[in-house]
């Protein structure tokens, strides 16, 4: 008897993604939808999508969504969670969104220990607007605003937002993962599930930073982009559990 071992998750609509070939966003969408299905929380989950490539995430998730202005994901999620404390509320943000314009909202939401989850997708550039330098762009990395590579003296060094948030008292669980290989994708799914469980247990602020390939703006093939996460991005942003106060 033949059985299905892998199919489209229940909470992802059957529509084509608008993302570029090899983009990590749609892998992360799928992992989130799988976790929601496995925890059976589809009817009580509210997602706050960002400004950026994932701005149209509400076209793909079959759950309740409320769009946030640029960078204000954590602030909007705070409001939703305080009004509806029984719901599972998570914001989905990119690195330009959370680490540049939304730094203040994110740090203070973590510091207050808001019982929300943040999915932080780090592709080390501004993807939607054409690959400009983001705060997380690596030293020496080419972007449209740093031709010839990011220079430490001129542009500053890449910011490690997860480490910054880890020193706040309210943050409970912060982990950095990636979606560039089978092993890392499975680890990412576990990290998302743990972050959601932290929120459901009412422990406090949880965040999963996910290193994601952006082949279009890195000007690489999708396979090369996945390899470059191993060789380049992980040298600056090593995968680890940054903070875990759940036990």
């Amino acid at each position: 008897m033949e059985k299905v071992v892998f199919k489209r998750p229940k909470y992802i609509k059957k529509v084509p993604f608008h993302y570029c070939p090899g983009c990590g966003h749609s892998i992360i969408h799928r992992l989130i939808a799988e976790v929601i299905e496995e925890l059976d929380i589809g009817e009580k989950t509210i997602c706050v999508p960002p400004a950026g490539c994932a701005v149209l995430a509400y076209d793909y998730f079959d759950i309740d969504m409320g769009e946030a202005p640029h960078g204000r994901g954590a602030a909007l999620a705070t409001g939703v969670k305080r009004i509806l404390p029984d719901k599972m509320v998570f914001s989905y943000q990119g690195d330009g969104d959370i680490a540049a314009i939304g730094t203040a909202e994110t740090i203070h939401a973590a510091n207050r220990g808001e019982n929300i989850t943040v999915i932080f997708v780090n592709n080390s550039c501004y993807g939607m607007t054409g690959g400009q330098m983001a705060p997380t762009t690596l030293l020496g990395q080419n972007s449209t605003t740093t031709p010839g590579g990011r220079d430490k003296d001129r542009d500053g060094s890449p910011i490690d937002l997860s480490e910054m948030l880890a020193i706040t008292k309210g943050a409970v669980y912060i982990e950095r993962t990636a979606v560039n290989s089978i092993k890392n994708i499975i680890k990412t799914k576990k990290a998302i599930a743990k972050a959601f469980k932290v929120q459901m247990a009412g422990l406090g602020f949880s965040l999963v930073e996910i290193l994601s390939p952006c082949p279009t703006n890195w000007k690489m093939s999708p396979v090369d982009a996945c390899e470059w996460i191993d060789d380049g991005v992980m040298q600056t942003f090593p995968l680890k559990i940054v903070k875990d106060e759940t036990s």
Partner: protein
Amino acid sequence: MTIKPKKGRIVIDSKLCKGCYLCMSVCPSELIVISTELNEKGYYPAEFTETNAGEDRKCTGCAMCAVICPDIAIEVYRG
């Protein structure tokens, strides 16, 4: 008693495939190739080559291609 080998197969939705070929890079049996025909979007989609429905199939249904596929274009069957 002999253990019946577990065999699988995959179905690639060529309308959803954007031709990133990450599935090709992870398939341990190298059963996925680039199609010679364009799809609606204008990409050359990935194509599953194993047409054999018998017992000596190479595809084990490990689902690694589906796990890495960014466009959820692959469904995996086993048994």
